[in-house]
């Protein structure tokens, strides 16, 4: 597991703490109302904490990665693609197209500390063109055959060449950080419902050495996954699928 620099406490928890302090200063009026307010605040803080993403919540593991055929197929295509990435890393003359910039990022990024590697990868991937997936026939869970699905999981090179939408950004970050030596155990493509945007959104979740999760966002922010903006739906990596609505 990699070590990351600790971030600032969340705004929600800071706000709750400030509230607690000001309540303590003012809290001489009535013991009863103070107790009620403290109870409400405790409930509020515990709800805030519960909104955080955790890699270790028991009971969320759903199935192996192969249970989502479209995702499993993207992993297989990426495994094939890795041979080209390896050749390019070994010799510059073997690099074509976006592989040239990928080589540079992987080579120069290798000497950075893990938290700066996250920022580099996040910004490198976020530069790509946003393009919505079209509904297309993909391998599906339904009857073990094919179905028209909106989400297409790309490989790293497919994404760098063509761009994509948010789950494609998160997937590309996943593959890039794997190339930089991050453990699969510490990375998940996390699908959420964004309460502010009122849309489904995918981000890459990264586990820190203290077990806390950070999110690599498409807006270039890298932040703790403990704000109330998201409802976590499910997550995938090369080892499995986690259902966060269980």
């Amino acid at each position, binding site marked *: 597991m990699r070590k990351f620099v600790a971030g600032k406490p969340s705004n929600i928890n800071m706000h709750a703490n400030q509230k607690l302090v000001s309540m303590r200063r003012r809290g001489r009026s009535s013991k009863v109302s103070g107790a009620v307010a403290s109870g409400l605040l405790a409930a509020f803080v515990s709800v805030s904490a519960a909104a955080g993403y955790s890699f270790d919540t028991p009971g969320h593991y*759903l*199935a192996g990665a192969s*249970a*989502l055929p*479209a995702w499993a197929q993207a992993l297989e295509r990426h495994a094939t693609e890795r041979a080209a990435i390896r050749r390019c890393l070994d010799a510059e003359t073997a690099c*074509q*197209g*976006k592989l*040239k*910039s990928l080589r*540079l*990022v992987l080579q*120069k*990024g290798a000497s*950075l500390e893990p938290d*700066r590697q996250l*920022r*580099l990868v996040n*910004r*490198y991937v*976020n*530069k790509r063109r*946003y393009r*919505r997936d079209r509904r297309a026939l993909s391998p*599906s*869970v*339904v009857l073990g055959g094919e*179905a028209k*699905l*909106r*989400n297409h999981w790309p490989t790293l090179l497919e994404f760098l060449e063509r761009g994509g*939408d*948010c*789950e494609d950004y998160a997937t590309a970050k996943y593959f890039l950080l794997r190339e930089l030596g991050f453990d699969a155990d510490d990375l998940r493509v996390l*699908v959420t419902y*964004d309460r502010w*945007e009122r*849309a*489904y*959104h*995918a981000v890459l979740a990264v586990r820190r050495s203290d077990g806390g999760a950070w999110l690599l*966002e*498409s*807006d*270039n*922010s890298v932040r703790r996954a403990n704000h109330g903006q998201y409802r976590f*739906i*499910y997550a995938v990596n090369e080892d499995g*699928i986690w*259902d966060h609505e269980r």
Partner: protein
Amino acid sequence: MRMPLIVMTSLACSVAWAETTEEESKSIEALQIRLATIEQIDVTAEKSPAKSFEAADAEIDAILDEADALEADSE
């Protein structure tokens, strides 16, 4: 005396086995339904990169500028 005991034990075992199989098939069905729901979720939110979220880091800026230059050359 032994025969009824054996028959009773066999019956109990087969009932338990049938219940387990039924439970397993129900959980497999539930898993398939959940996976089918998951794969239909249309993940689309668009968030544009914002300069304000970038921590100042000259080394990262330099790597990204060099990467941009390489991509511009190969286009």
